[in-house]
């Protein structure tokens, strides 16, 4: 018990002092282990966990999905996706809100980054909406809340990390399971959008002419094809997710350099370097979080937490509800990657004992932590979204709260109706 307390306290103190999250995790794990065993051995053990935590072929998909996303982003994909979405929903009153939501879902799925979606799609959409007389707080809130949906819609790096943390739940099944919950998240935000648009009398966009629609459609199709090639290859069992991610890079390079012609050879150095930065940011977090998770299990902390959870109730829905509350609370303060790596080994054994499918639980966890990305005080997506829109936090909050409620309702639906995540994967060949 003393160890648990020291672990949590040292982590929180380091975090509040502004020590980078990855280092805070690594340091508090080292402190706790050094209290237990010989210091020299403790240091070498942590060192070993740091390295072995990254020794996984499926983690390799992460740098490639990031790279493909960076290339597509430089290749001007944001504008194409916006024009594409406009063909379908632009003429409904408040249409630009739905354009923003759909473009964010597609961009997030393709680029794998919620922060990139907020700034890239928001950067184009927010000025457009302002010009059309949309209230700034509403458009900023919609842009923020919708940009995390791409993390649930495959391919998704965070689901790869969950697969690692869970000890090998099929990435393919997790990917496929994300479609319906992701689309429901989008729909729920659109419903709030419709209500607010009606209340505030938002204008619709004029219908595009047939030729405009035609060219917008075919300009975006090659980008969307990336999702189809990657997911088709994975679902069909042709590629592993890692191989598919490398194919995605080739597709993105081909598209941006030869078809769209917006990326030049000389841009590649910067794109590669940016990819290295994002990759090592995530993977160093994975590395220290895996070390932390090992120390936790060495101290038997997951076991004692599981026991106290089970003692609260043996009803799986009650337990899932409690876990959701805990995750929502931690998601407010914690980044997604360490949260998945640290909490999965704690909660997964409890829920699988009660008969919850690990795929279902992965989707619940990721959806839940997505909400944390757009809440104060530390949500990265929230702050990027605010700086893109130049609207203050207090101004977006009223609209944002409505959108949080919508997302939480979907989270509860996905929690209590397992079929929403498990129906599609049931068609996969086993």
């Amino acid at each position, binding site marked *: 018990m003393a160890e648990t307390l020291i672990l949590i306290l040292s982590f929180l103190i*380091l975090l509040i002092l502004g020590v980078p999250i990855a280092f805070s995790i690594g340091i508090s794990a080292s402190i706790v282990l050094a209290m237990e065993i010989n210091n020299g051995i403790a240091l070498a053990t942590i060192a070993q966990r740091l390295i072995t935590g990254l020794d996984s072929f499926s983690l390799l998909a992460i740098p490639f999905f990031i790279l493909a996303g960076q290339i597509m982003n430089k290749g001007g994909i944001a504008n194409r996706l916006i024009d594409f979405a406009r063909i379908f929903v632009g003429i409904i009153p408040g249409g630009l809100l739905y354009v923003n939501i759909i473009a964010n879902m597609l961009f997030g799925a393709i680029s794998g980054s919620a922060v990139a979606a907020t700034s890239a799609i928001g950067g184009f959409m927010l000025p457009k909406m302002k010009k059309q007389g949309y209230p700034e707080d509403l458009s900023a809130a919609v842009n923020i809340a919708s940009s995390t949906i791409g993390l649930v819609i495959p391919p998704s790096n965070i689901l790869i990390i969950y697969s690692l943390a869970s000890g090998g739940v099929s990435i393919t099944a997790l990917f496929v399971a994300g479609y319906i919950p992701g689309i429901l998240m989008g729909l729920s935000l659109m419903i709030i959008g419709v209500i607010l648009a009606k209340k505030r009398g938002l204008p619709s966009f004029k219908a595009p002419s047939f030729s405009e629609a035609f060219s917008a459609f075919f300009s975006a199709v090659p980008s969307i094809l990336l999702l189809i090639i990657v997911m088709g290859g994975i679902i069909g069992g042709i590629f592993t997710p890692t191989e598919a991610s490398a194919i995605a890079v080739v597709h993105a390079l081909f598209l941006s350099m030869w078809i769209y012609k917006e990326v030049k050879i000389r841009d590649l150095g910067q794109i590669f370097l940016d990819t290295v930065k994002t990759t090592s940011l995530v993977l160093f977090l994975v590395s220290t979080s895996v070390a932390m998770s090992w120390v936790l299990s060495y101290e038997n902390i997951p076991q004692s937490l599981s026991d106290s959870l089970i003692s609260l109730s043996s009803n799986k829905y009650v337990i899932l509800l409690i876990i959701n509350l805990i995750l929502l609370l931690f998601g407010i303060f914690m980044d997604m990657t360490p949260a998945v790596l640290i909490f999965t080994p704690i909660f997964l054994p409890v829920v699988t004992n009660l008969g919850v499918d690990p795929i279902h639980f992965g989707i619940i966890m990721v959806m839940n932590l997505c909400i944390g990305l757009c809440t104060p005080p530390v949500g990265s997506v929230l702050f990027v979204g605010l700086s893109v829109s130049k609207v203050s936090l207090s101004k977006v909050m009223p609209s944002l709260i409505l959108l949080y409620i919508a997302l939480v309702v979907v989270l509860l639906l996905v929690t209590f109706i397992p079929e929403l995540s498990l129906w599609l994967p049931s068609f996969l060949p086993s």
Partner: protein
Amino acid sequence: MNKINEVIKKGLIVILIGLLCLLLITVLWQVFSRFILHSPSSFTDEFSRYLLIWLSFLGSAYLVTLQEHIAITILSDKLDRKHYVILKYSVILVFSVLVMIIGGFSLVKTMLEMNQLSSALQLQVGWVYIVLPISGILISIFSLNNISQAWKGAKT
């Protein structure tokens, strides 16, 4: 100090971009050898995993010199910048020296003594793991530089 820092940083950029390119080529070779040559390559799986380990640790050293590791800044925004930077990088310095350098070297030494070979490439695993102390040294140098820059910045 700052000059050495800049030289290392430039070298590191070249190595990191090279590693990512090599990683991409390796995985594409795996796809190519399986589909076109119909003889799946045996070394690519292991080699690419080791490349990723090198990329991640050297990349996180690079992030230290850029000061771009993500942190929570609610309280530190209120601290003055000089003291915040000195505090933050002193903590990182302690971690990199103790865990990454000392812990890392003793791990490498053990691995080499045990003569542990990797399964496909028959490589000494110790040499793969040496990236940890190397990154530790880089992180220490970069942290010291960040500290000294912050120190000087406040003096002038």
